[in-house]
């Protein structure tokens, strides 16, 4: 195993400890806590009223649109991170490529800005 991967091993150890902690607190509380279910306690809480209809109803398509927009911009960010880290580092991008990479990233951002402006004009960010 190379040293790059080795630095992640403590995270694995930590992960196991955290899973143990979460599992233990769920399990112990489940084991200790009293349970006296009644019919009213088992009802969905709706401020004391009898619930009407299913909780899982149709919801606004806007939430999907936001999720799609999020995907686009988040992937944009994911492309930018490697560039931002390596562009001006010794051992990163060779000096010759820095100029083209710089203008390339600017072009990339410009294209996304066009999409962003289009989305704005189309009313994609309007919540109604």
């Amino acid at each position, binding site marked *: 195993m190379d040293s790059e991967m080795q630095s992640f091993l403590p995270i694995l*150890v930590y992960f196991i400890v955290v899973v143990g902690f*979460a599992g233990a607190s769920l399990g112990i509380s489940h084991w200790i806590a009293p*349970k006296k279910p009644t019919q009213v306690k088992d009802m969905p809480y709706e401020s004391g009223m009898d619930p009407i209809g299913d909780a899982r109803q149709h*919801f606004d398509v806007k939430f999907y649109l936001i999720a799609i927009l*999020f995907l686009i911009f988040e992937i944009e960010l994911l492309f930018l991170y490697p560039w931002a880290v390596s562009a001006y580092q010794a051992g990163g991008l060779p000096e010759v490529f820095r100029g083209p990479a710089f203008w390339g990233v600017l072009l990339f951002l410009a294209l996304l800005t066009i999409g962003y402006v289009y989305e704005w004009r189309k009313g994609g960010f309007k919540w109604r």
Partner: protein
Amino acid sequence: MAIFSHPMFIAFVVSVLVIAAIPGICSYLIFAERKIAAWVQDRIGPNRVGPWGLFQPIADGLKFLFKEQVVPNHVNKVIYFLAPAIAVLTTLLAFAVVPFGSTNTQNPEEFQWMIAPGVDIGILFIFAVGSLAVYAIILGGWASNNKYSFLGALRSSAQVISYEIPLGMSILGVVLLTGSLNLERIIEHQAQGFFHWNVWYQPMAFLIFWLAALAETNRLPFDLPECEQELIGGFHTEYSAMKFGMFFLGEYTHMITVSFLLSILFLGGWHFPGLTTLGPNTAGSVALKFIVLFGKMSLFILLIMMIRWTLPRFRFDQLMGLAWKVLIPLALVNLVAAMFVKHYDASPWWLTLVNVGLFFVPAWWASGPIGSMRRPVREVGVGAAARV
């Protein structure tokens, strides 16, 4: 005695210590929050358990354990139990790469005050794991099979993913200037002097990151997912006892991580002017660095709590508008400015200039007639169709 100096053993001990410390710190943060709330509202706050109510957190913790666990019939059992576990898991896991004391990348042999030293993707790891926290909310809300929970989960997922973008974009400028995602390197980059702190060069990015982080942690003024007046408890309406406590633990751990990130990314981490000359690895300097970093972190937590009791909650369309129409363009301009500064090797103070300029543009815009966000978006009547 080789096993005691093995890195995995050290990692295990540190992990256990951190896991033991964080719930304690969180419960006292809740205590602090209640006290602050009380002082802001001219009340006394918890004062019955122990002197000045200092044992209140312990009583609360015991109550989480011994109160009745209501598991309603209508929930999806597996997901219902999984959700609080995920909430705790993701927020605690994000803490793995946060340096909470002195670190030194030049000398990996010396003890590093973090769980996983030398992980080069530091911030990326925190964002990757931290953004999984939305699963806890949406799974909890879905599994509860309750209208309040469902609405809260929906709102929350939209809010959290929207604010993820300004959050990630605002630190790109920092990453570009530092050339590393590793939090230890970012601290060392700023530790060259007081005026190397990133907050001087990118005050706007600092503000964007802070706002986005507040929204990510579901703190007021962005606590739409659980706003009590409208949604009872939002996604955790149907949760009781320890499972409710675990959601709380997740939220407060997230707050601690975010405060650490704010002080590490923008305020120089353990660096403080005048305190760097104590020597590289003496016990005194390690303790000082620890205190400085914790001081900065606590300051942010206190500010976040003060914000909670100062600002009213946003309306949902304002919340989404703030993320998409204000924070993202500002972060983008800041990023482009950072690109030019780095590429042409200009003085970083140009970045300060751009950032200060960025403060005025939205101010001018918000006060002007064109883009005012104070007007409700929904328009009715004849003019509405024509204006779209």
